[in-house]
C-alpha cells in the first residue's frame, strides 16, 4: 500500500479523492463496470442514516455501495477540498 492512500470508506462527506487501485478482484470488476476506474475522481456525497451504505459521486452520477465494498478501493485524497 502506497503511503498517503486511504480507503474510499474513510472519506468525509464532501471530500474528493482519486481512485488508485483495488484490493479485491471480484469487487474490482463490478466497480470497473460501474465506471470506477483508476484515475477517476470520486466524491463522498452522503451516508445512509444508519452509517452504511454510502453514496459517492463518480463519473457523472451517484453510486451507492456498502462500506465493506468501499473499503476495497484505495484512493488518494485531493487536498483543500473538504467542502
Amino acid at each position, binding site marked *: 500500500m502506497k503511503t498517503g492512500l486511504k480507503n474510499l470508506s474513510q472519506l468525509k462527506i464532501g471530500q474528493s479523492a482519486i481512485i488508485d487501485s483495488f484490493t479485491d478482484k471480484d469487487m474490482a470488476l463490478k466497480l*470497473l*463496470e460501474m465506471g470506477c*476506474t483508476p484515475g477517476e475522481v470520486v466524491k463522498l456525497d452522503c451516508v445512509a442514516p444508519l452509517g452504511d451504505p454510502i453514496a459517492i*459521486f463518480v463519473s457523472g452520477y*451517484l*453510486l451507492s*455501495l456498502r462500506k465493506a465494498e468501499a473499503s476495497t478501493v484505495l484512493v488518494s485524497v485531493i487536498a483543500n477540498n473538504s467542502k
Partner: protein
Amino acid sequence: MDANQSFVNLSEKSYIKVALVGNPNCGKSTLFNALTGLHQKTGNFPGVTVDKKVGFAKLNNNVTAEFIDLPGTYSLYPKSIDEQVAFEVLCNPDNVNHPDVTIVVADASNLKRNLFLVSQIIDLRIPVILALNMMDLVEKEGIVIDAVRLSEKLGVKVIAISARKKEGVEQLKNLLSEPLPIPQYDFIDVKKIAPELVENVRKIIKLNSDFAAFQTISNFSEIHYFDNHPDKKGKLTALFNSASIDRNSLQTEESVERYKVINRIAIECVTSRSAIKTDTFTHKLDSILTHRFWGYAIFLIILFFIFQTIFFVAAYPMEWIESLFTHLSAWATISLPPGELTNLFINGILAGLSGVVVFVPQIALLFAFIGILEDTGYMARVSFIMDKLMRRFGLNGRSVIPLISGVACAVPAIMSTRTISSWKERIISIMITPLMSCSARLPVYTLLISLVVPSAKNSGFFNYQGLILMGLYLIGFIAAISAAWVMKWILKAREKSYFIMELPVYRTPQWRTVGLTIYDKVKVFLWDAGKIIVAISVILWYLSTHAPSERFQTIEKKYNTPELSMKYNSEERQAKIAAEKLEASYAGILGKSIEPAIAPLGFDWKIGIALVTSFAAREVFVGTMATIYSAGGKDNTQSIRDKMQAEVDEKTGLPKFTMAVGFSLLIFYAFAMQCMSTLAVVYRETKNWKWPVIQFAYMSVLAYVSSFIVYHLLK
C-alpha cells in the same frame, strides 16, 4: 473514417429487427415507448422468465421495424439472468432475436460509463446507432458533447435525443432507413490479452470479430446456445478446459483497457465547466430523503398514504364492480331458462369472475404508486436507507421493493427480486414475500372482519375494523422478517453480497410509463390468476351440485314422505333439502374428510371446502363461500356476509362465526401458502422444486400452529 468502410443497407429489406440496449436508468424504455406507441406486446425470452418487450413501427420507406427492448445492462458480462439474455441476443448471430441493427441508448450525463457498453457492442461488429439521451439535461449542467466528433471517432452514427420530450425520435427512425456503417473501430485489441485463445476460437466458429471470440470463450460456462451444435460445443469445451481460463482477470484487464480508450475519447469530445458536477436539486432532496430522521419518517408517511388510498379509495370502484355482478346474476336468474347451464353460468362462472375483477382497482392503484416511486428515483433511496436494517435479517436493501409489491401480488413481487445479485439474499426474499398480505387476502380479511368485528368507530377517522386490518398487514410483515432472520442462519451464502447500485437523479414521473406498468400488471393478474380462479370456481360448482350415486334422490324422497312434508312449510323444506344436498355432495365429502384435521382450529367442513379450494388461490375463499351459501339457500342476490352471519352452529345453536373462529381463520389466511400461481413462479425463478416445496411446508406449519393458538386463546 476508413476508406473501405462497409455498410449495411436495411432499406432493401421489408422487415428489420432493431434491438434497444442500454444501462439501467438510461431512458431506454421511454425511448421504446416513444418509438412504438401502443403497438407493443410483452412475452418471455425462451427458457427464462425475463420479460421480452416487442414493439412495431412503420418507417418512412414503408419498412416495418420490430423493436426489442433488451434488459438494461452495464456491460456484456452475463452475470445475472437479465444480462445473459442481452448477451445471447447480441453475441449469438443465430439467435431468433439477433438484431439487424442495434440502438444503444446512452445517458449523456454520464457518458463514460455508458460508453463502456457501447464500446463492447461496437467491438462485436454489429451495426450500431448511438442515441445520446438526456442531452437537454447535459446542456443545463454546462457540459458540451461534440456528437459529430464522437461519431467520427466511433465510426457509428450518433444522434442526440430527449426521449422524455420526444425530441429526435423521428430523426432516429429516419436513420434506420439509411445505409448504416458496420463499425470498424477496435476499442481494444483482445489479441494482446489472450492471443492464442482468440485465434483458436475463431478456428472453431465463424465470428465477426476477435472480441466476439474473446467474449465467447471467457463466458463459455454461462453460454447455452451451443447446445444444438454438439461438435462446436465439444471443441470449445476442450479448448476451455485446456486453457484454464480465469474469467475474472481477463475481464478486469479488458475493462481497464477499455476505459483507457474511453477516457481518451471523452477528453476529445466532452467539455465541461467544472471537474465534478453535482445535480444540486438531487443533492438537496437527498439530504432530506436520506436524513436519519426525516428519511424514515417520509418513507412511513408515503407507505401510510399508499395503504390508506388502496383501502379507502379503491373501496368505491370495488363496490361498483360487486354490485354490477350482483345485478348481473339477478338478471341472469330471471331471464335465462332455468337448468344446469344457467346454474353453471351464475354460480360457477359469474361468481368466479367477480372474485377476480373486483381486485383490479387495488392492483392498479398499488402499481400506480410503485411505478411513480420507481420512475421518480425515490425507490432507489428507499433501498439505500433500508439496506443496513434489511441486512440484519439476511436481506438486501433491494428486498424492500418485493416486500412492498407483495402487498399487491406476490407474483410480480417475486419476479422483481431478480435485481438482487446475491443468491442467498434473493432466495430469502423469494421465500418470505408471500407472507406479506397480498390483495387476494384483502377480500377474505374484509369479509371475515365485517363478520366478527363491530363496525363502531372509536375516534373519528379510525374504526376497529380498520385497525384490525392494519394489524393483519403488520403481522404479515413481522412474520416475513422473522422468517428471513431464521433463514439467514440456515442458508449458506454462495457468494458475497453486493449493494453496488446507481442512485438515479430525481425526475418527475412519466404518466405514460406509469400507465403502461399498470396496464401490464393488471393484464398479467387478470389472465394468470384469473384463469385459475374461474377454473376452480367451475370445478367447485360441479362438486357442490353433484353427488355420488343416488344420494340427492334419497334426500328428495325423504322430504317427500308425508310426516316431513307436514312438519315444514314449503320454504323451510327447500332450505333443508338444499343444506342436506350440499352436505351429501362431493364438496361436502371433501370438506368432511378434512374436518378432523381442522376442527382443532375451530373450522367446520364448510370452511374445510373453502380451505381446499383456496389452495389454488386465496381469493377463491370468498367465491367458495358464495357458491356454498348460494347452493345452500335459494336467494342469490343476498350478500354472502349476511348468509354467513345467519349460519348457526349445528351443535350449540349459537352463531357459527364467533370471534375465535373468525380470528383463527384470519391468521390462517395471513400465513398459509395458498396460491398456485406464486408456487409456480417460485419454481420458475429458482429452477428447483425444492424451494416451492419448502415454502409451502413452512408456511402451512406456521399457519396451522398460529391458528391453533389463536383459536384456543379466544375460545
